[in-house]
């Protein structure tokens, strides 16, 4: 498998050469980040090993009983049947028929107990691997993974969030890791903000003023070269890369056949865009599907919602597997919690964090595996109980990152994951 580093268009090649030409002039030796940028060959090499993480965030709390851990024929099971999958012995809900056929790539974690039934607090636990204590403001898994995985010379944003509605700009999900690792939002799959040159400036004039800026920078840097001043100059080159590679963010460039397969609904487009981004080397992509908070009409709602999810997700897993990308890409399907086994009077299920499921695939995850189990009617975990902190460690370890290490943030040593917890060793391959 070979994935092209960024894109191979002629323009890109030209731009990079002109950039190299400029920078090489008057630069004796380079230290720091910019130096790495000047060696595109390394990029290609690293890309083959580059680990990626993609997070499917099921907003509102997806029902484990209508998806990964069905309990048909019990008092809590609801109306749906379970169906066999491509892995003998593992059954999922009949609302996931296409995904069932991809089970041999997946690893189900069925004994999740995060002990927090509030949306905000539950989300905090699941996405940061820590309990919110008020004083805490911890980075989310995407930001931690982006910091650990983004190559120094990667020109495009390392952490991208495809938002369901509008939006755009920078998210607030990296806490003390700094805005560099915050996700860049693609509002409903649209390209990043300000990535088009205004009409009032011609391409030629833009090139001229950028060139002048570079020379001015070079004069300043020749007085004293520092990592911060280089990083500042580099951000402009990154911006130019984003403008030149705007196509990377354009899902309509994908074949019509694939657009059809994934489904023309938002989730289908977003999933295909996620595939496109991953193929272009984006280390961390997050996409969401809303809204699973089914206090009313849980069953009708899941029929509708899972129709979209099953189609998009199964295509996504299959494609990544076909392209050999599962070796280097960790897929995570999470939610702030699951839903109560007990069906309420409105045919709904309520918030439930004590026995629910999370799914992973790729990288160090075992293929076609179910870890942990709940009891007959899904009211408790009977085997392999894990919490948010275990999962957070496991996500990182799964993507080849040592979750017991620390980041040095401006002189502070900060552990990547809760140091009093540990990953689910039993499943890491």
């Amino acid at each position: 498998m070979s994935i092209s580093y960024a894109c191979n268009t002629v323009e890109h090649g030209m731009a990079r050469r002109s950039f190299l030409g400029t920078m090489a002039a008057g630069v004796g030796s380079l230290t720091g980040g910019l130096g790495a940028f000047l060696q595109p060959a390394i990029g290609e090499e690293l890309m083959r090993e580059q680990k990626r993480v993609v997070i499917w965030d099921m907003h509102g709390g997806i029902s484990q009983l209508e998806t990964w851990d069905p309990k048909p024929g019990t008092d809590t099971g609801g109306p749906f049947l379970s169906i066999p999958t491509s892995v003998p012995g593992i059954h999922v809900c009949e609302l996931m028929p296409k995904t069932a056929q991809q089970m041999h790539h997946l690893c189900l974690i069925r004994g999740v107990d995060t002990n927090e039934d509030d949306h905000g607090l539950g989300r905090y636990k699941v996405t940061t691997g820590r309990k919110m204590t008020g004083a805490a403001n911890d980075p989310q898994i995407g930001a931690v993974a982006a910091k650990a995985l983004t190559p120094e010379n990667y020109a495009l944003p390392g952490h991208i969030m495809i938002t369901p509605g509008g939006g755009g700009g920078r998210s607030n999900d990296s806490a003390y890791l700094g805005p560099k690792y915050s996700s860049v939002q693609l509002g409903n799959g649209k390209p990043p903000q300000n990535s088009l040159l205004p009409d009032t400036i011609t391409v030629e004039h833009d090139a001229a003023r950028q060139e002048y800026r570079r020379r001015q920078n070079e004069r300043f840097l020749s007085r004293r070269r520092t990592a911060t001043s280089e990083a500042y100059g580099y951000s402009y080159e990154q911006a130019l890369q984003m403008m030149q590679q705007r196509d990377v963010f354009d899902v309509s460039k994908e074949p019509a056949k694939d657009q059809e397969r994934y489904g023309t609904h938002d989730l289908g487009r977003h999933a295909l865009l996620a595939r496109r981004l991953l193929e272009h080397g984006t280390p961390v992509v997050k996409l969401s599907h809303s809204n699973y908070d089914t206090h009313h009409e849980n069953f009708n709602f899941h029929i509708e919602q899972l129709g979209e999810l099953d189609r998009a997700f199964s295509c996504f897993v299959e494609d990544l597997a076909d392209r050999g990308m599962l070796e280097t890409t960790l897929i995570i399907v999470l939610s702030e919690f699951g839903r109560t086994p007990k069906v309420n009077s409105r045919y709904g299920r309520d918030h439930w964090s004590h026995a629910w499921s999370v799914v992973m695939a790729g990288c160090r995850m075992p293929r076609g595996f179910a870890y942990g189990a709940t009891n007959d009617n899904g009211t408790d975990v009977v085997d392999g109980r894990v919490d948010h902190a275990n999962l957070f460690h496991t996500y990182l370890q799964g993507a080849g990152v040592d979750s017991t290490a620390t980041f040095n943030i401006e002189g502070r040593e900060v552990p990547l994951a809760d140091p009093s917890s540990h990953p689910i060793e039993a499943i890491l391959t």
Partner: protein
Amino acid sequence: MRVTVSLALFGLLSLTGLATAEDQPLHVLINNHLTPSTGDVSLCRDEEFLRRASLDLTGMPPTADEVRAFLADESPDKRTQVIDRLLASPQFTRHLATTLDLMLMERRSNTNVPQDDWYNWLLTSLRDGKPWNELAREILTADGDDKAMRPAARFYLDRQSESNLLTRDIGRIFFGRDLQCAQCHDHPNINDYRQADYHGLLAFLAPGYAVVRKETVKEGDKETTKEVTLYAEKAGNDLTFESVFNQGTLHRTGPRLFNDVVINEPFTYPGEEYEVAPADGVKSVPKFSRRSKLAELATDGTNRMFNENMANRLWAHMLGRGLVHPVDLHHIDNPPTDPELMTLLGERFSAMNFDIRGFIREIALSQTYQRPFDQSENVLAVASEAATTVAELEQERVTLEQTAQASAATYELALAAWNAAEAATIPVADELDTARKAYDEARKKLDEADAAVSKAQSELGQKQAILTPVELAATAAQTAIAKLPDDKELGAAAEKFAQRVKEITDAVAALKKALDEKTAAVAAPTEAFAAAKPPVDEAVTRLAPLNETLRLAERALLEARRQMRRDAVALASLDERLEIVQALAALPQLDQAIADSKATVATREAELTAAEQALNQHKSLMTERATAVASADAVVTMTTASLAEAQAALAKRIEDIKAVQTAAETAQTASDKLPDDTVLAEAAQKLKERSTALATEMGQFETAIETATEDVTSAKAVQQSATQMLEQAQAELPAHEQSAATAKTELIAAQEQVVQNQATFDAGMAELTQQFASDFTLASMKPLTPEQLCWSILKATGIYDRAWQAEAAEVEKATPLSDEQKQDPAQLAARELEIEQRTYNKLKGNLGAFIQFYGAAAGQPQGDFFATADQALFAANGGSVNGWVAPASGNVTERMVNAEQPTTAAEQLYLTVMNRHPSDEETQEVTAYLAGREADRATAAQELVWGLITSAEFRFNH
């Protein structure tokens, strides 16, 4: 301007003996403490100084006119004058208010106190010259109830009054200690921060909570109810905690500050803790406010951590990094650049009554603040002497390490003793808790019983009060009936009265009985309450000495900790100096390596030249030999031809001889037949003679052939030899080629070595330069805050000054100053303040976009630099910057467009945007840029302004 004094390593030597005299101004003491590691004591250039001081003191750069005037000023104290002018400007307090806002609130959202209220409170406080400790005390004690002081409560209220969050932020922002990681266990990476420190501070704040009070607001005739959130406080308890790594071992603590013992809290019996007891919608007030105690302990001028924290933060504000850096990680392993200076700054800040402006003035006056930005040229000269210093420091280190180990061991012992004392105290403290709880319950039961008696009494009273009038009425009715015995209606009424009297009398009796019962029922709870008190008192009595022991143990622990801290800081501080000196000491070697590798390159070049020469010589030899072979070939050909010729001549001669012989024989035969024919005989004779003669000459031919044959042989021999020589040379060619190639490879390797050595040297220098920025030998690079960046661009593009002029004109028009008033400095200052405020109000709407792109996330430290593509996209393609650089009345772009010479345009451009003159190279570049752009000069000028505004030199303060 650059004065180089080769006073090597002065700054790295021990500081003992340096003047710290009380009467010296602080800036002189700073100079004495922080002498440059390079020995280079030169100061930055004037234009650099002006930009730096303007940005640091007012948050925006100077104008081109200010730069010109300052450069032209020849007074010796012009820097001091500028500092004082800037400090007196309205922009100084503005910038300081913004800085404190960022420090205190870190861009948290405004949920309870509007940003403007809070910001204006800060601004007014600073304009009034409120000292830092007072400001801090107001913040730490604010509850939001007093209208005038409500803004101060934003610190608590907009942290949702969350005690863990407040503990962390008060620890960081007021004491310089980020105890976050010590919440759940002793800090994993910082030996200095213990879980007990976190919970000790938390104990001051845990009683605090947000209370929502309904208030009626009158607006004209309308009355509306609104909810106001206040910060209320309960009476505090001890906190218990355990480490997540060591579950099961419980600890307990009351309120205490880092590096101090638990405070002495007055004992109150349960039920007597409050001035105003907690209730729904009521702001409770405890008799003893822990929070007030915290504020008092922090701000009374004696708290080193509080004093040094702000001194260090103001230092960082000016110098770009703290003496302790990061500013919220004061701890053993992160020593101040100069521990003595850190102590001194804290003491002086406190001694000058926490006067922020005065303190900043001293920093600005110091040489340290005015150090150059450019890398020193003096480094190598100093480096040559560093090796000796390394040895000295290493020697010193051995002693310091032993001392540090010893004091660490002492600390461990003290810690064990304290742990034991704590373990002994906990059960009794728990008993007291239990006893207090029992007491509180007994008290509540007694209160209930008392309340029941009161209730019964009041009911009885009410009944009795009715009885008398009814009795009177009954008696009166009886009297009446006696007089009108036949009146039936009256009789019935009298009977009713009598009946009522009986009923009421019965009820009174019942109530009396109930009262007696209730009264009797008081006895048991009274007794129980009385019985509940001794256990409390007893526990208090038993706990007192234990607490005292614990306190003593803790004092010993703290003393051990202070000692350990001092020793560890001394060691860590030495290690930091050692690191610099080692890096310095390594430089000459690295430099020598470059020289050596350059020499090797020269040698290799010579070797390559020699090898190539040898190869060339060999090649000419081969050519020669090939020529020799060719000529030998020619000789062979020639001699072979000669031989053939000789052989041909011989063959012809043989033919001739044969012909002559035949002729002779024929003539003889004819002569024989005609014997007298003398002619014939003579002819025959002659033919015979000729024949004989010819036969005799045959030998010559044979000899000739022999000679020719010999020639051929010898030519062939020569040919063979020449061929051999050629072949030999050919065989030798690869060896020559090989040595030339080898020489070439070696040369390349040597050249690469030079590059590599140069890179190592450069990396070493870069590392050192960074160290020099850390130890204040060189000026730091300070990224502009989002606000500074926005104001700087508004200033550079003329928008700020234009708005100022407009506001000034409007104010002058509305309320013109009389000539007399114009002479009054106070009037003028007030006027300036007003114009500044109006200009700020006019332009502040521009800040939002900059904060969005260049600001860190809410609740995160705002000082860490980051550069992201979205910022660059905003600057390159967004509306703000592109719009502002357009030509407009008198701004730099327009002045450039109107400049007659491109050199003048360059001058305008650099003086306005960079606050300095352009270099020749820059002038040429601007000239070249504008050439050919006559048709769209405005666009070209705009591009140039954009190019400078987005360059690193503009983005940073240096």
